[in-house]
């Protein structure tokens, strides 16, 4: 549950609040679990829905602008653009900078698009796995992922353009 909540939030207090809500809801709705799927799947779906609702309630979609970037994030982008290979960073500091920047990028997307992109492009989940996790149809998952990819790419292109790349 903690891992599912962490997909949506980075701040520890928010992750813990969401995970706690998931446990409470699961406990009160235990009677509605029919045992058709796995318990883990049932819990994951509850967690996903709760986190989506929290994100929907916050209604925050800030634009990704260069003025909001920290020096580290600016440097990270410069390094990534100058290196041809797209390998992941291994230093803890760089990982943190990249995850911060990723969060800002994901915040520009709707909660549903964000989830689809994180699961499919970030965690290499299949469309059917995401459909099972969210309760959406497979075509909806594909559309969401496509739209999210496009929006994220456009937001990043805009940002890089402002930075002069």
């Amino acid at each position, binding site marked *: 549950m903690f891992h599912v909540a*962490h997909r949506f939030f980075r701040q520890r207090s928010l992750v813990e609040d969401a995970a706690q809500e998931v446990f409470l809801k699961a406990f009160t709705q235990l009677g509605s679990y029919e045992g058709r799927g796995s318990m883990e799947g049932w819990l994951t779906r509850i967690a996903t829905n709760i986190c989506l609702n929290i994100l929907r309630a916050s209604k925050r979609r800030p634009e990704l602008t260069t003025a909001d970037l920290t020096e580290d994030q600016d440097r990270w982008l410069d390094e990534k653009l100058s290196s041809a290979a797209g390998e992941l960073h291994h230093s803890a500091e760089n990982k943190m900078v990249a995850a911060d920047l990723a969060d800002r990028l994901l915040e520009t997307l709707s909660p549903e698009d964000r989830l689809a992109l994180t699961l499919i492009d*970030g965690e290499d989940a299949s469309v059917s796995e995401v459909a099972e996790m969210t309760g959406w149809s497979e075509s909806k998952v594909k559309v969401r992922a496509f739209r999210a990819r496009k929006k994220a790419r456009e937001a*990043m*292109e805009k940002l*890089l353009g402002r930075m002069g790349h």
Partner: protein
Amino acid sequence: MKDKHIIDILEKGPWASLTESEVRTITAHTEICAACRSAFEAARVSTLLVKERAAETMEPSPFFQTRVLAALRERQAKNNLPVFARLWKSAGMLVSSMALTTAALAAFTFLAPAAGTGTSQNTVTDLSPYSAEAVVFNQDQSDEQLTDDQVLTAIYADNEVK
């Protein structure tokens, strides 16, 4: 194939699902098309960021379990309250406001007429001491105490008003 824009290929699926031929097409096209090159760079960086974010892990704090159990107990205690207490919790405000409104209406009903009587009495006492009304209402003042002139003045004054 070189002349065909590659943005559609970038967005049709995850980065990892691109075939070798698609990668070759993308590389060849981005060398001659500046728009697609910037789109390709942006897509590459955003995919990398999403991967970095997904790779990040967080473990629950040592007090998380205690916190959840405490919240669970609190919720159970709430659900175990007697029916009347739960009803009062949800409808207490409504009942209180209704009681207050009833009390206010009762106060107006019983106090307002008393205040009205006081006003009419004041009006009578404010009249001229020799007017017809004053003579009728003022029981203490007997006819013997009035002079003839006073009686006549009071009667003429009443006639003039009428």
